[in-house]
């Protein structure tokens, strides 16, 4: 055997096997998650893109290509424009209120006393009931006839409110339910953030002359920046998931007051069977959500680290 042949020339370009380096054994463990990821996330997006460019008969069969017509149709539709505004409004209304309340609750309950632990558990408790049951509870509380809220209102001499058939109250009800349910999560995020602040830093600030207000605005709040970013993204994401009470209670009404984009998407697909337009609407709304979250992540980026 000629031993000199053993010296091979060095390849400059990585070959395909090099790109897949190390995947062999990993693939066995990744397989279940990867299959589901590909089927129900990646294919899902591909399917959305594909259906959004087609026209369908009422039976759901693709009968032609529409190009970008579905997008043009959806985005020029004044009802869908209104729906997008409403979705944006839901985020703009929900995020600040939920953050303020969650932060206030976290500051109030941060000390580790037994009483605080109980109140904390109560603030979190709505999460355990699930969105459907939470919606039942709100439907009952705000029921025009037997609801406790109207009973209290009339008891103290105020007029009863037809919560689900008046515009602003219906919007408040849907948003209020969402905030009531999610404020516990925000509180937990801020509690974790507060406990990550080294007590020494607050002590140093006190000795440096900071009163309670200066301590909060110059130390505590800036040091909560990461929790802030996380809580804002979570709340924004949740503000795009308030379809359940709309579908169950208001059905987009009264007079379009809760006619959210996601509700229109549902209706377009499952009541009007206009699959192409529904997919185009889905993608448009998803794009809007991702843009908002990207902007938030950028605006709230944190430049400092401990250590």
């Amino acid at each position, binding site marked *: 055997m000629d031993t000199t042949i053993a010296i091979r020339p060095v390849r400059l370009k990585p070959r395909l096997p090099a790109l897949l380096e190390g995947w062999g054994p990993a693939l066995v463990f990744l397989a279940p998650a990867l299959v589901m990821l590909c089927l129900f996330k990646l294919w899902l997006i591909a399917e959305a893109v594909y259906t959004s460019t087609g026209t369908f008969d009422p039976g759901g069969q693709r009968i032609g290509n529409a190009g970008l017509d579905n997008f043009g149709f959806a985005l020029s539709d004044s009802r869908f424009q209104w729906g997008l505004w409403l979705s944006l409004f839901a985020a703009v209304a929900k995020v600040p209120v939920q953050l303020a309340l969650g932060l206030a609750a976290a500051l109030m309950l941060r000390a580790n006393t037994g009483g605080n632990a109980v109140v904390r558990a109560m603030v979190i408790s709505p999460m355990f009931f699930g969105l459907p049951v939470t919606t039942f509870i709100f439907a009952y509380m705000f029921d025009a006839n037997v609801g406790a809220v109207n009973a209290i209102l009339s008891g103290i001499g105020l007029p009863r409110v037809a919560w689900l058939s008046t515009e602003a109250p219906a919007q408040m009800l849907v948003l209020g339910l969402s905030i009531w349910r999610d404020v516990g999560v925000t509180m937990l995020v801020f509690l974790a953030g507060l406990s990550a602040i080294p007590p020494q830093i607050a002590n140093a600030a006190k*000795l440096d*002359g900071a009163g309670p207000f200066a301590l909060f605005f110059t130390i505590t709040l800036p040091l909560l920046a990461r929790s802030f970013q996380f809580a804002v993204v979570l709340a924004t994401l949740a503000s795009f998931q308030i379809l359940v009470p709309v579908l169950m209670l208001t059905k987009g009404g009264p007079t379009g007051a809760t006619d959210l984009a996601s509700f229109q998407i549902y209706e377009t697909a499952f009541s009007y069977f206009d699959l192409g337009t529904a997919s185009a609407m889905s993608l448009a709304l998803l794009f809007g959500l991702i843009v908002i979250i990207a902007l938030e992540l950028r605006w709230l980026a944190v430049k*400092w680290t*401990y250590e």
Partner: protein
Amino acid sequence: MHKLVLRSVTKSYAAGSAVLKPFDLVAQAGELVVLVGPSGCGKSTLLKLIAGLEKLDDGQILLGERDITNVEPRHRRIAMVFQNYALYPHLSVRENLAYPLRRQKLRAADIVLKVSAVARQLRLDELLDRRPSQLSGGQKQRVAMGRAIIREPDLFLLDEPLSNLDAALRTHVRGEIRDLQRRLGTTMIYVTHDQVEAQTLADRLVIMRNGEVQQVGPPQEIYERPANIFAAAFLGTAPPNFLAGRIVDDRVEIGQASLPLADLPGECRTALAGREQIYVGLRPEMLRPTCDLDRDHFVLRGKVIRREIVGNSQNVHFRSEAGSADAAKLSALAGRHLSDELVWTTERAGTDDAVELGIRPESILFFDTDGVAIGAHGSDAL
């Protein structure tokens, strides 16, 4: 310059477990007082009480002419350097330094002037725009010092400020802190568990154990005349060799060796008279070969177990017939593990299997069976 007075300050967390037993301390104006003791002795708690970060159960704290017992921390005019520096991570070095001044609502122009003055003094000029996470340990330490001195406080508190630095840097920064304190003339309370740091820095040392003061005084004085076995074992590179002794007639008997009381200094002789059981402490570095001593009444013979070479000196571990006392009891009194081996620290090289050592009678430390020093010792007024 301001004097700090603590009057019978007490503190406990859970009922019954006193962290600080009634505690008195006076730091004279401009003095550097070091609180030293093993971890859990209450020294850090004491610092927090002085700073006002924790409430005291009882007692009084005076700073200069002011009673600050119930004053908010921010109005005490006290600056503190924390063990992990506690720099504000979201602020630049410049803003860290300016922070105390901003809280005092100083004019912007004055703040700029003061920050640059302090930065020059502490060689931070180049670092002013960095954030704490971009600094080395030594640089962080300097920023923490700068933040403390910038507002010209009445009192400095330093809580183990060097423990996060490596050994070489520690010695250097220690010197810088000492110089800075001398130059500013501000009273300083310095907490450490490191006895070398404590001795090199302190005008006066306060040795603490379990929330109680063991001894107060200048380092040299405590080294020469420790108030008890704990203080004796705490200062010095190695603890003294403790041996059990007996007073028989007018001699001190330590195992086979013995020593006439007449050879001891006057106050020691009278204090020892009439006692029976005692402990003696022989500092390893005070032992001498018998041939070097003019009088050799007291001879300690032993077999060498091992020799450890440390630079140009040698620790000779040996076992003697004089024997050591009950190691368990002595360990409890000293607050650290004491073996039954004896140690002789010497600069001579040697390879012998046996040693024959003596000590000048005035260098012997005497303790009663409760570990309290016998004879007058240098514990001055607290």
